């Protein structure tokens, strides 16, 4: 490794090409929901996790996942992993809920 100790996410100063101007976009509804969920989990009333934990979780996603996921996909993945670690969500309930949502989306798509 040419740069000993640099972690994958710590990209300051690495070549990244020109800045794309005019690339701003509105946030999708699901992205706003991810932001809202994180804020609610971290608020003074619930205090279930900190933004620092979320950042740590993002840094631990692995280089391939980090590069391939969008910004809010990384938030969602990290938040989910931390909630599982803390026992706030179980893998089983999450898996079952994901099945339900997938089935609902499929039914909606077929019905429309």
């Amino acid at each position, binding site marked *: 490794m040419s740069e000993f*100790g640099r972690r994958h996410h710590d990209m300051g100063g690495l070549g990244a090409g020109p800045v794309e101007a005019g690339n701003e976009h509105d946030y999708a509804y699901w992205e706003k929901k991810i932001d809202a969920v994180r804020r609610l989990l971290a608020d003074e009333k619930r205090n279930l996790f*900190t933004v620092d934990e979320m950042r740590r979780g993002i840094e631990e996603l692995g280089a391939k996942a980090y590069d391939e996921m969008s910004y809010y996909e990384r938030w969602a993945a990290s938040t989910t992993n931390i909630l599982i670690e803390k026992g706030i969500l179980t893998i089983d309930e999450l898996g079952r809920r994901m099945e339900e949502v997938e089935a609902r989306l499929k039914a909606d798509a077929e019905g429309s």
Partner: protein
Amino acid sequence: MEAKYYVGDAVNVRRAFPPGHVRTPYFIRGQKGVIHEVVGTYSNPEELAYGRDGKPALMLYRVQFRQSDVWPDYEGSNADTALVDLYENWLEPGEGAV
């Protein structure tokens, strides 16, 4: 909490590469700078990141660096500077003014 450094003090950023969640960017480690602002006291993010309480809190500083020091191939003005927020545990006393 009392600040160890004050505006104008020369500091060096520790050249350390521990694993784990660290808020000191790679590119600034080992660089010399000057305290630009004493920002205040914050819970330690290196502890908060693992679900602990972040105590004792750390003093946070806004430190000014010369761009031409930070980037060996910097083509801009020699007067250009960069400001980086750094926690006290990453700073050591520097020598003289930069």
